[in-house]
């Protein structure tokens, strides 16, 4: 019991939620934007002219106090959802976000089924 108490203590101690992100907002946004004229590179990775321009625009927008979401909305209005690497959470994409977990759940149930047979 003493052990259990200790473990909870240490866990709580080390899980202290830290909101401070290690990468800057700027880099985070750059990494989430596709360089649409490149082959599978993000704005952060690309050396292209287009990426340089987008970087300036994003920096300006951050400077004007716009938040991440507003910047994504602005860019996806101009270039389509394709420019954003993290798919939006909407009706069309709900299957994308949920189905992996549905597979996980079904798999778990299936394994569980093989346990229970014995008890019958």
């Amino acid at each position, binding site marked *: 019991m003493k052990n259990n108490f200790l473990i909870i203590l240490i866990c709580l101690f080390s899980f202290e939620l830290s909101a401070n992100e290690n990468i800057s907002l700027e880099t985070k946004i750059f990494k989430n934007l596709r360089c*649409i*004229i490149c082959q599978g590179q993000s704005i952060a990775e690309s050396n292209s*002219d*287009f990426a*340089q*321009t*987008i970087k*300036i*625009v994003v920096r*300006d927008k951050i400077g004007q106090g716009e938040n991440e979401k507003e910047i994504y909305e602005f*860019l*996806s*209005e*101009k*270039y*389509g959802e394709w420019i954003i690497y993290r798919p939006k959470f909407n009706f069309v994409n709900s299957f994308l976000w949920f189905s992996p977990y549905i597979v996980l759940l079904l798999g778990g149930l299936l394994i569980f089924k093989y346990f229970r047979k014995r008890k019958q």
Partner: protein
Amino acid sequence: MKISFLKIISAFLILFTILIFFLALFVDKRYSTETIVGKQIDNFEIKFLLSNRTFKKNDLSKDQYHLINIWASWCLPCKKEHPTLMNLKKEKNLSLIGINFKDKKLNASGFLKELGNPYDISLIDKNGTSSIMFGVYGVPESILIDKKHNIVLKFIGPLSTKDYKTILKLINEK
């Protein structure tokens, strides 16, 4: 019963996936311009090429179509589409707005002097950021705006003779 249900589901999923793959083979995978076409043009504020004043959305007239052409003196395809633009200049229903993109002022005015200036309004976008407003990928690109300031068409790359005819047909409708 349950097993056959599973079989039907999996057979269906497989067939569905293959069908989608098959259809995807014939889908046009080029950059689409649909996202921006049909929308009201956003507010913008861009410097004139030859003066320090700025041109705003409200300065767009309401009795003409506008063709915003994004160009640069260093861009070879721009030279190719230049005669088309000179032809479009003759149209009364159309006002041409040139946005010089990531260029040096001197080279830009040299380019216009040498080949002729097709633009009614010449603007400059030194670092390319203002053109993002129009969803620009690179140069040259052209955007056709109607009298209500909605984006009607977007052309990526140099304007072709076919594009020229499409524009003429649109602006001379009614």
